[in-house]
């Protein structure tokens, strides 16, 4: 059964592996994936532990529906205390690793301690081995996977690994599988690096039994047809997520030159249509018909002939607008480098953009950069900084520490230029014209981030009845909603609703492009109840799933509070309030966030969450969610 997968507790200090079943009670309360990971992280880490010390746990998991007939059920989730924010660390990725881990018999690996020398784990048909990884240390993401497959003599092996950045404890190093699937955010690669854990390899041939296989097959077809019938899916099937850039840049929603502008004019070269010159076809994660990324070959410069995948919308920002570059070749090379080194592309772009503004302002000088001209649009300098961060050379060594630690080293005058929340940089979106999106990044449980609660469909200004249908279910919310993205009213509910639906898909291991993220017509709670029932036999109502998502999100909140987060951390950098946008369409030009209105939004958001005015979940909420034993924290 999809429910008989195991959880393995791996202690790298003692070379010990304990395998246990996953209690049915945990399925009822947390489903699996990110939700159960959040609970495990809370229980298995002592308060205040060093994120890069042996007491932190790295949890690698496959969601409840991974490998079943739920379309795009391919996501691997990685969780630990974040070395970037010292709070919730959490990132997930597509590819083929998670289904392979399930065919190999496991849903969750909980890894603590630190191996004496570099190791990797080999998970196969119910067994786990700790193997020597000495010869893999220092090797890039692509070659690491290649070498492990050859060593194991099995090309079908799926591998998750870190690159040199993770080994060098770059605080925004990621965990990768395949050519481009990245559990990118919050520095999970550094946590694996601190444990001397280079990789996890999986190979499985065990059945995942489905409760109602033929009905699940038919229902999967229905869901796939529903997803690929929407315009946004069809655009992504053709162009990938890069299409978003053309839309948001034209409007004026792209963070440019760190945060100086909200649009990069004359950047046609990095628009998605131009990818066709380099693309050799599209690429799909396991079971997905949206196949939202390209396979491409670099054509110019020292990396000519290199095969890579992507680039996503995020890399167009990181190696384009944020650093003022206008070359598709730079985007393609930068994207390749972060993927092979194992770095979070979002954090990389933000750190370099920030450094460039400091250089422009004279806060960083040629002395700090070793003569490197960190000027806007200097393509070579941007790519050189990626290398320096990975190998911790020169200024790169400072930037590798992430926003707040780097600012502490450079000096307090650098702080106002940082575009971060809770110590994690934002992606290259400019939320000054969009209060709902601004609230989302201010409150997200892992720091500035769009994938925790972004109500992206708010940007479409759809008819009210569409928003009513989405955002009033399943709990019958009766408060305000508005359908203009310039408004403040009704937006806290949208953010909260998205937090719940994203938590639900992260528990299930389903991709966000298969839920209400970029389209209001994609599956949500109602479809999830069916997918779970047909594939696993577990019966949940829509409200059950809502409550589970709420429980899991609340645990992430409790973890953050336990680790020292306060209300002031749910806030935006001053520039959002003080510097109006300069460019873009009228709807996006001259906009800034109103402090008072934003404060009112935050209060409303807390109230809707049943958190008190300091952002602490109320006792009634914790009791209703059956997690009152977690707070006040005992560990």
């Amino acid at each position, binding site marked *: 059964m999809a429910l008989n997968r195991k959880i393995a507790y791996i202690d790298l200090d003692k070379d010990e592996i304990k395998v246990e079943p996953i209690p049915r009670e945990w399925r009822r309360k947390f489903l699996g994936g990110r939700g159960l990971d959040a609970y495990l992280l809370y229980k298995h880490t002592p308060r205040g532990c060093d994120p890069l010390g042996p007491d932190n746990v790295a949890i690698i998991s496959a969601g409840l529906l991974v490998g079943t007939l739920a379309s795009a059920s391919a996501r691997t989730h990685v969780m630990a205390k974040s070395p970037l924010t010292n709070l919730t660390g959490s990132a997930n990725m597509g590819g083929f690793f998670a289904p392979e881990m399930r065919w190999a018999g496991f849903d969750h690996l909980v890894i603590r301690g630190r191996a004496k020398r570099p190791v990797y784990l080999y998970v196969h048909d119910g067994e786990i081995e700790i193997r020597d990884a000495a010869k893999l240390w220092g090797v890039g993401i692509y070659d690491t996977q290649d070498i492990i497959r050859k060593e194991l003599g099995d090309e079908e092996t799926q591998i998750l690994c870190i690159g040199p950045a993770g080994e060098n404890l770059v605080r925004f190093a990621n965990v990768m599988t395949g050519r481009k699937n990245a559990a990118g955010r919050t520095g999970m690669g550094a946590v694996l690096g601190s444990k001397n854990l280079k990789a996890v390899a999986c190979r499985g041939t*065990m059945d995942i039994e489905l409760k109602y296989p033929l009905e699940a097959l038919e229902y999967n077809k229905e869901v796939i047809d529903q997803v690929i019938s929407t315009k946004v899916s069809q655009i992504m099937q053709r162009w990938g997520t890069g299409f978003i850039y053309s839309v948001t840049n034209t409007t004026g929603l792209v963070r440019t030159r760190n945060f100086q502008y909200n649009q990069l004019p004359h950047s046609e070269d990095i628009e998605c249509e131009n990818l066709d010159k380099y693309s050799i*076809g599209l690429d799909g994660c396991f079971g997905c018909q949206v196949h939202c990324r390209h396979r491409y070959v670099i054509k110019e410069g020292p990396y000519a002939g290199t095969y890579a995948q992507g680039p996503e919308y995020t890399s167009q920002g990181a190696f384009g607008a944020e650093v003022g570059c206008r070359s598709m070749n730079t985007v393609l090379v930068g994207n390749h480098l972060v993927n092979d080194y194992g770095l979070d592309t979002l954090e990389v772009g933000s750190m370099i953009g920030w450094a460039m503004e400091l250089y422009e302002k004279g806060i960083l000088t040629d002395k700090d950069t070793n003569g490197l001209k960190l000027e806007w649009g200097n393509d070579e300098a941007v790519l050189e900084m990626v290398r320096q961060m990975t190998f911790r050379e020169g200024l790169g060594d400072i930037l590798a520490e992430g926003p707040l630690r780097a600012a502490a080293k450079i000096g307090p005058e650098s702080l106002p230029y940082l575009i971060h929340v809770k110590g994690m940089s934002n992606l290259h979106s400019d939320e000054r014209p969009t209060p709902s999106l601004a609230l989302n990044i201010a409150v997200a449980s892992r720091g500035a981030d769009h994938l925790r609660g972004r109500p992206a469909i708010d940007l479409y200004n759809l008819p009210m009845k569409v928003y009513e249908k989405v955002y009033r279910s399943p709990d019958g919310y009766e408060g305000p909603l508005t359908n203009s993205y310039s408004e403040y009213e009704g937006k806290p509910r949208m953010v909260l609703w998205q937090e719940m639906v994203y938590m639900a898909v992260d528990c299930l291991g389903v991709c966000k492009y298969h839920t209400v993220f970029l389209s209001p017509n994609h599956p949500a709670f109602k479809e999830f109840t069916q997918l779970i029932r047909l594939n696993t036999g577990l019966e949940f109502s829509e409200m059950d799933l809502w409550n589970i998502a709420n429980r899991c999100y609340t645990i992430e909140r409790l973890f953050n509070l336990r680790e020292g987060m306060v209300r002031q951390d749910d806030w935006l950098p001053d520039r959002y309030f003080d510097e109006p946008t300069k460019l873009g369409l009228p709807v996006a030009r001259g906009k800034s966030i109103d402090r008072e209105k934003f404060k009112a939004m935050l209060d409303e958001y807390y109230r809707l969450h049943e958190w008190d005015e300091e952002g602490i979940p109320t006792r009634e909420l914790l009791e209703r969610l059956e997690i009152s034993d977690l707070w006040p924290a005992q560990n």
Partner: protein
Amino acid sequence: MPKKMMIVDPERCTGCRLCEQVCSVKHNGVSNPSLARIHVVKWDNEGFYLPMRCQHCRDAPCMRSCPVNALYRDEELDSVRINHDICIGCKMCVSACPFGAMGWNPKQGRVFKCDLCHGDPQCVRFCDMKAVDYVETSKMQASRMREAAENYAELMRKHGR
């Protein structure tokens, strides 16, 4: 009924392996690609993907290698089928198949292969890209020729004919 055949177009394949999964669910009621009759062979370092499955050969090595004639041709679908009542499980066909399309299921103690899902191949049904397709033989050639001719036509158009 017009005759049909399975065709593969690696240029269209995105490597998602949904074909493998739906195949194992349809035939075995479980999700398990190691039981699938189709497998996407991948060269991950080059980004080249090729779905492999039974070719339903006209002069089929599996049929020739079977000592008890358990393999036979289903004339209606023009496919190679297994008669499990006769099969002795010797696995000679597994060795003989030049495409690796014949598998062995240790749990059932049986060989397995593509049966075209009795005329409605699920791999084809679920492949939105039509990297695997099930097409009428009489029309297949013309459509492939048209596709191939596109390049030439494009060239001619460019040069103003």
